[in-house]
């Protein structure tokens, strides 16, 4: 993917565009760190992968290429409206794998 494909040109030169891009980068790093095999979650993750590989294929001596793109998407937004005024009462983001989005 080219840099230009990440954002529309105009949006990319705003604070919001820059912040979103850097947050997305952080998301990728966080995901990588969560499956880092020395970390608590990573250990759990890989143990499960190998356990299931063993169960399904009878061996753990196979390459495991987990290629997962992670996306953030809006989950819920509740707005309280009073005349010409609005408040965000509730908002939530969700995380999906690319294949689920």
């Amino acid at each position, binding site marked *: 993917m080219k*840099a230009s494909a990440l954002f*529309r040109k*105009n*949006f990319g*030169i*705003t*604070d919001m565009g*820059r*912040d979103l*891009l*850097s*947050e997305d*980068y*952080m*998301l*990728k*790093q*966080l*995901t*990588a760190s*969560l*499956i*880092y*095999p*020395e970390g608590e*979650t990573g250990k*759990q*993750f*890989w*143990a*499960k*992968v*190998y*356990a299931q*590989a063993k169960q*399904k*294929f009878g*061996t*753990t*001596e*196979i*390459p*495991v*290429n*987990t*290629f*997962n793109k*992670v996306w953030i998407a809006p989950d819920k*937004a509740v*707005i309280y*409206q009073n005349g*010409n005024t*609005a408040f*965000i009462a509730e*908002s939530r*983001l969700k*995380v*999906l*794998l690319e*294949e689920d989005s």
Partner: protein
Amino acid sequence: MGGARGGVHTTKAPLLNTLGSQIIRQIVLPLLEKEINEGKNFAQLRQVYSGVILANWYKRALKQALVNQVYANSKKVNGIDIADKSSKEKIYNQYLQAYKKGVYNYIKEDVGILFSGESMPRKYFSGGCKIGAAMISKVVTAQEITPVQIKTVTGAKHPVVVPFLVVNAKSTAPAARAAVGSRAQKSDAATLSLEERRLKNARLANQQRVSGVSVDNEEGFSQKYPSIANDQRGIQSELEGHLTEEHQELLQGMPSGIMYRTQEAAEKANRMIQLIEEGKYDHIVIITDQDPVLAKAHLQSATKTSEWNNFLKKKGKPQIHFIDSNDPVAIQRLGVLQAGKYLALELFLLGHLVIKKFKNL
């Protein structure tokens, strides 16, 4: 995003990817979701989300507002644009760097407590990586080179498949050493000091460099070993035509016999085995252009033991090291081994021979 490789390639890999995705959903995504909705690292993102929510409401609820009429859907950013227009590219470049280099990239000895208690070398990499046929698209090594020369060899323009590689780090005259045979080596060891032997070998190496044909490139190798080179050109063209098939076949079936296509190759192989068996070396270095972890796993699989280094140690046999010929750090590690003699072998295609021999230890 991330991955680990260990063992042999099979057609099960795509299924495993699906399996990995399922576990990501179970374990990783909930944590990410919590961090994104509650963590301080994503406060800016939540702020942006709030802005987008309100902007949407504003556009829908106040269609007649002046700001809406002037600004909405007109892609105007004047006044809210940032001074550094290249920040998008800078962040993108960070992406690329992380993707190419990997957020992490290391080898870990996993102890399979779940199953057998055996340890298993695995490479964990997060980022982008070359897999499949690309792994053997350039197999470059030389028959007799010094560690310093390895860098040059791996930078060769054309792929060269050569039978095996003998390097003695202490002596810089591996070919001469191999040629004089084990008896001469024993004699050297008995009569000369370590330093004298080193100097003698260095002299031999220099003589060879002056008078001999360089074998660290395809042309030199072809001149010195025309029959092997001819044979290898055949192998090479076959490989280029069937990279994927050949790769799969090599990894799964591990066919042997390529070493024996020529008389000269067979003799070299026998000499190599003899050197190993006689314990002439403290270390065996297996140099591979493929994934060293994969190479290690081949050896492990063939020897039916995951603790083959301990196994060899008990037998008083040399220790084994795997070196990625494309990895400068790994190449530097060769220098560490210079405290002892070592035999370096190229695993690709011809490693089976070594593997077979280990089986019989």
